């Protein structure tokens, strides 16, 4: 029973965790641009000439094109990887303070603020080499709610960023294309690719799908790893139920002798199994809920995430999906019930006259 609850708790935690990570990511992606155009060079993402924007703008259905400037910065001091991004119009909200309004200012993610021990109005100093360096006044810090996307972020003025990374003139990191009619996105993506064979247009739905897959895959992998213990548990349940104690055999013998039928005992055993598995299931789910949503899945967050030191501190928004609960139910209660069939039957066919011979 205890083991059962623990297994349910583990499985449920896993699914809760992936699910809320996924949901959080999805919530943010919903606001992501519909179409991003990157330039590829030698199979790698390369800077894109801002001049491409004009021609793209002339494609019917495109309402505006905007260059984006961003890059990664490895901070020797803390060993963390930051994402530096130039402020653009639809920048993220959820900020304490303001977003940078001009050169010399920046807004940073919670993670960056924490590892650099920086607070509002402090100065953030970044440097790649003696030539490429910048000091910025922190005017905003992103709140924890958005940590999954903003944790490692440093938002700064475009000129500061271009100078810091020494980007060539008229080159941007990628282009954001706004399309007036969402259903035309795939067509426009195709046209861009035809006009500029060296580009790679990425649609939002592609990103969403990729993320879906990554999360499903992670959740699935983790579940697969648990099939083993689950089987072990089923065998354990089997063992426990088959090895009927003398007392239990006696009790069933009495029931049969005083007028219970095999089917009555089978029903009793079924409800017994239901009671055990449902209590364990509920206990396990509640444990998982507490574990994931109050303790941030402290016990195995590292398994599921952790690419970078600056991976978001996980503060999932409590969120329950009935579907997930049903999946867990299916993975735990059903194998358990199945494993009790034969032992219950063995108990149920006890001869009623055994009680007269003890």
């Amino acid at each position, binding site marked *: 029973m205890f083991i059962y609850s623990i297994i349910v708790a583990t499985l449920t935690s896993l699914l809760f965790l992936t699910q809320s990570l996924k949901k959080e990511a999805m919530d943010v992606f919903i606001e992501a641009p519909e179409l991003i155009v990157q330039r590829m060079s030698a199979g790698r993402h390369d800077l894109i000439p801002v001049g491409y924007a004009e021609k793209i703008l002339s494609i019917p259905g495109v309402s505006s094109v905007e260059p984006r400037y961003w890059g990664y910065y490895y901070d020797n001091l803390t060993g963390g990887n930051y994402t530096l991004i130039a402020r653009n119009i639809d920048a993220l909200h959820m900020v304490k303070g303001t977003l940078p309004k001009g050169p010399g200012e920046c807004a940073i993610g919670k993670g960056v603020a924490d590892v650099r021990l920086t607070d509002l109005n402090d100065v953030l100093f970044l440097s790649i080499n003696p030539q490429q360096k910048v000091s910025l006044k922190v005017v905003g810090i992103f709140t924890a709610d958005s940590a999954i996307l903003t944790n490692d972020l440093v938002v700064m003025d475009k000129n500061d960023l271009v100078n810091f990374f020494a980007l060539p003139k008229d080159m941007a990191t990628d282009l954001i294309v706004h399309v007036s009619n969402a259903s035309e996105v795939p067509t426009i993506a195709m046209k861009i690719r035809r006009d500029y064979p060296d580009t790679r247009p990425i649609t939002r739905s592609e990103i969403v799908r990729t993320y879906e897959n990554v999360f*499903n895959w992670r959740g699935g992998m983790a579940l697969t790893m648990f099939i083993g213990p689950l089987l072990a548990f089923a065998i354990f349940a089997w063992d426990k139920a088959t090895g009927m104690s003398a007392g239990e055999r006696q009790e069933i013998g009495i029931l049969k002798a005083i007028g219970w039928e095999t089917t009555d005992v089978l029903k009793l055993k079924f409800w017994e199994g239901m009671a055990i598995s449902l209590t364990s299931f509920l206990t396990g789910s509640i444990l998982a809920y507490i574990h994931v949503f109050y303790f941030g899945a402290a016990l195995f967050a590292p398994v599921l995430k952790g690419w970078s030191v600056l991976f978001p501190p996980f503060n999932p928004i409590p969120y329950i999906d009935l579907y997930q609960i049903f*999946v867990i139910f299916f*993975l735990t209660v*059903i194998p358990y019930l199945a494993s009790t069939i034969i032992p219950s*039957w063995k108990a149920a066919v006890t001869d009623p006259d055994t009680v007269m011979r003890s």
Partner: protein
Amino acid sequence: MILHPGALALITGAVLCFSMTAYAVVLALKIIWHWDISSSSELQLALERRTYLISTVMNYVMGFEILSLFLYVYTLDSIHVLFVGAMCATGSLNANPIGWYVLYTRIAIFFLSATWIAINYLDGQAEDYPLVKLKYKFLLFIAPMIFLDGYLEIKYFAGLKPDVITSCCGSLFSDESKKVAGSLAGLPIKPMMYVFYCAAATLAALSALSMKVKASIVKYLTSFASILFFPIAIASTISFISIYYYELPTHHCPFDILQGTYNYVGYPLFVSLFGGSFFPVASGVAELFGSVPSLREPVGKAQKRWYVVSIILIAIFVGFSSWPIVFSGFTPF
């Protein structure tokens, strides 16, 4: 291959159901070979005890199959985001058409295993186990279906490729689609409504008649009517019941009504439909055994009850189908 938790749960369930059925088949074979009601040997006693095991296993298999039918539809709904163009469960099914066959086999398994349980119930009502060999032979017939269903389900999930461009209910259940489903959706609403209400009324009337009249032919006719009613009801769900619930003249998907957005109305709808069309069939099957002397009385009793249940369920189904037609202001024509 898609490593989705729901897919894993379903595959686990399929493997379980299959192993349980295989086990039941082995037990059933022994019974078919060695059963001898007149003997009081230890073997016969052991076989009798085994009948309880087989019944239990089959009850569980049916329970699991029903749950996994629901889980299957939910999972389809949950994975649709993986496919370009998919907006709901239908889109996921079209991403790998084997999915449709899984749905069909599972519905078939529901009816077959429910029939088995009905026969098993009747057999238990007679003092001489008159149907024992027959019911286990029937079990041998159901087992391959369960195997096929599990196999198809694994093949479906294994064959799913994310990013596949698929068509969804919008196109599948739209009037222009060339597929069968499309033609179902394209059925003119008004005539379809007449057919539906006539079919429901006929089935209910025949069920009521079967309770009064002794003649077997009436009962067989009722079973036949209910076998016809099931596809008509499904077609009606796609053709007009769904659009009244969605209040969208082009939305025909039969799965979306299971969602919370539509107050889970799909559950009472489908449960009453499956139950309501099963019981007249079961009564017809029971009629086949009405001539066995020891079964005459139990069959009569069971049929009476089953017809009443079926009439009630059909009434519930018609009630739920007509609710939005009567009370929503939506008029598609």
